[in-house]
């Protein structure tokens, strides 16, 4: 089965402001492994580098450093040309990711033909209908002939999922696949993704800012802060017993009707908007438990079974 592994992935963006050239590190030495049948949730606030990682993994952007290794069932590296047979993506906004000019059939038939899954119009049409049926868009013949504006948001996202499956992908990068959808539709789309994953033994990277769905939908959670992995581990561990102060803050901030009537959590950490001092722990400006050692860069420290946190609180010196 196909596995996708990154080691020390780095992406720098150059910013030009006047004559000054600056470098902005969007992704800072991120190592991830996506294995068949498992879902990894990548959690973080906007600007933390989640979507940049998605663009790197789908080869829309080139990494500045680090390695992306894709291995097939036999553990052999997949050559560059075949990369896109294996790795596909579901975009965040189904209103933007489907071309308004083309029919649903076009969106599914193109990847089928491009990746040599089908030959000839008739076989392609049958496969398009089969794909639509798999994502529960019925009647398939009717849906295939429609254009995106004739579909609801949830239906569009199902088409986008079918498109990702069309090349026979084994690794699916889902970049906030439900955040643009109405709340009552989200569940259905997530359930669909979960079922397809079971059926096809897919490796899924679920990118989200929502801790709750990450917990229910993913096996492992990776928390990203300013391009760095600050905490990772089994979903329930990370979210129910967060170790890193940032994850703790995230978990405490989620709306919770059970907290009704209690005083709101201290909001001081939320107002921190400084650009972050270079070097050291990226979170130390907002961290309630910042210490002197935080001026040095922390390493990922084990805090439990398969659970690590990049924080001096768990470091060797404390």
């Amino acid at each position, binding site marked *: 089965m196909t596995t996708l592994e990154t080691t020390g992935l780095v992406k720098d963006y150059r910013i030009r402001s006047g004559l000054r050239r600056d470098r902005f590190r969007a992704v800072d030495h991120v190592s991830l492994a996506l294995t068949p049948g498992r879902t990894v949730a990548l959690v973080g606030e906007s600007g933390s580098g989640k979507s940049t990682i998605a663009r790197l993994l789908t080869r829309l952007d080139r990494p500045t450093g680090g390695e992306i290794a894709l291995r097939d069932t036999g553990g052999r590296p997949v050559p560059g040309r075949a990369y896109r047979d294996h790795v596909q993506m579901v975009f*965040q906004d189904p209103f933007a990711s*489907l071309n*308004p000019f083309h029919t649903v059939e076009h969106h599914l038939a193109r990847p089928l033909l491009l990746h040599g899954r089908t030959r000839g119009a008739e076989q392609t049409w049958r496969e398009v209908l089969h794909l639509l049926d798999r994502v529960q868009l019925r009647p398939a013949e009717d849906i295939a*002939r429609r254009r995106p504006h*004739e579909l609801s948001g949830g239906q569009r996202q199902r088409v986008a999922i079918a498109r990702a499956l069309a090349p026979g992908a084994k690794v699916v990068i889902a970049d906030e696949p439900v955040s643009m959808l109405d709340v009552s539709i989200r569940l259905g789309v997530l*359930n669909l993704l979960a079922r397809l994953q079971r059926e096809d033994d897919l490796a899924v990277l679920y990118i989200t800012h929502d801790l709750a769905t990450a917990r229910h939908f993913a096996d492992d959670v990776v928390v990203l802060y300013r391009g760095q992995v600050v905490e990772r581990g089994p979903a329930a561990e990370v979210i129910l017993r967060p170790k890193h102060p940032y994850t703790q803050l995230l978990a405490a901030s989620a709306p919770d009707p059970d907290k009704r009537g209690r005083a709101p959590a201290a909001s001081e950490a939320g107002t921190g908007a400084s650009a972050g001092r270079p070097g050291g722990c990226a979170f130390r400006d907002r961290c309630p438990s910042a210490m002197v050692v935080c001026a040095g860069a922390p390493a990922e420290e084990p805090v439990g079974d398969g659970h690590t946190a990049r924080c001096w609180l768990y470091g060797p010196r404390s």
Partner: protein
Amino acid sequence: MTNLGPAAVPAPRWGSGLRAMLPRWSLRLAIGLGLIGAIALFGVLGSLFVGDPNAVRDAGLTPPGGGHLLGLTQTGQDVFAQLAYSTRGSLEIGLLVGALATVLSAFFGVLGAYAGGVVDEAFSLFSNVMLVIPGLPLVIVIAGFVPPESRGAWTIGLVLAVTGWAASARVLRAQTLSLRNRDYVAAARVAGEKRWRIITVEILPNLLPLLASQFVFAVIWAILSEASLSFLGLGASNSSTLGTMLYYAQNGFALQRHAWWWFVPPGLVIALFGCGLSLVNFSIDEVINPKLRSVFRVRRRDPVPPAEVRPAGENVVVEVDSLDVVYRSDVPVHAVKNVSVSLRRGEILGLAGESGCGKTTLAYAIARLHRPPAEVTAGSVVFHDRDGTGTDVLHLGPDALRAFRWDKLSMVFQGAMNALNPVTTVRAQLDDVLTTHRPAMTAADRRARCAEVLRLVGVDPARLTSFAHELSGGMRQRVMIAMALLLDPQVIIMDEPTTALDVVVQRGIVGEILRLRDELGIAVLLITHDLPLLLEIADRIAVMKDGEVVEYADAGQMYRAPAHPYTRELLSSFPSLTGARGAFLRAGQLEGSR
């Protein structure tokens, strides 16, 4: 949007992708097409029926009449026959140049923008250079260099196309730059599409309306420029156009000899054709930018009868009674149906629902911010002031309304943090509200008040001198709330105030809202799709669906025992952070085609 089964979806419409790109039928378009059609028909067919335009007769310079519809020229040529042939000549040049210029501008604009990097820089520089070279003088110089005997229609067409494509290229480049960053282009790249296919199959069809508009523009430009060139005697030697007609009229002293029939018809044909093309172009522009569509006139209907202002119930500050709001479009949309809610002092009233349920429309109607085609068709909104006087909001005059808004009731809009003016400081923008509404306040008082409201929302008053881009998203949203607080209103309507923010920042803003409610006793109408958030912080909640309030209850009660099935469905859509893992996914067996 919750029950979009296959039956609820409209039947597929064939070719609707192309149809969406056709301009909407309007009087403007009809006149434009009529003018173009009539003139083109005249040019194409007219020349078949009129006699030889160059036949010389004895009679010189005769006014219309006597068998010659538009009279004769100095040398006795029939003006009508000349006009027919010249119109055809001008149209041919126009189409030729239009096509050439569009191809050139598409090549340099679209290709450069898609390729990016050095190619884009080079192409863009080249179009900019072509753009700053003044067109007509260059045309004159080029046309002047070509010897008259080899100056055919093609030569002139080529010269005009080369000098006329640059402006379109820039427009197309800008649009392509925007299109190439669309997700569907990224999706095509991820699917492994080749570059040329992405440009021709994914991008180009979406540029069609723009290309059509640029083509029409190029045709107008070509006909006018060719007429100018010919008028100067630099036109094509082997063809007759409206410009050459004017040239001969000028040389024959038509103006001095009052021979209007010689120079007015060709001038008029040029003007009318240009006018027709421009009218068509306006209609194409509406396809490119739907905002230009003129809002159709809304017939003034009988206004809603004035509300009976009754004394307020316990602490009620805003009372909405059986409100109906209808969007009067082709198919009227009943966005708010018979909604009655009341907001008490010091209360947070939550308004929950999904997109399109009418929650924002309701909020706008309460603040009287709804615009045509939205219209309140029934019901009333009554505001009860602190001193007990009641105001019928739907019947306030323009001045009273201005005083009412912001002073008594203010709003924080969706995405409001992007509403700050980027070129002035925070203080200038806060100050502006005070100078408008409190002209009597001194500058020092205003400064003190601005600092005070910032402190109220937890922003350091030192930030008054900051510009919007120097503040984070959460900070900007706090500034917007501060602005809403400036005039000490009794009610604030907040429309999705935290939707675009991260949970940690949202938590901070929510904390401020709760504190303002507790400290200042402000009543807050909080609109959001995030039901768990409302359940945590609101006092009462109204759940809306399809314009109706389906459940209206105390928040605690709604959390313990949601009464309406839709409320339960919404609640079950939000997984609990701490519940058993997978319970959410297993519970979600209602996987339909939704």
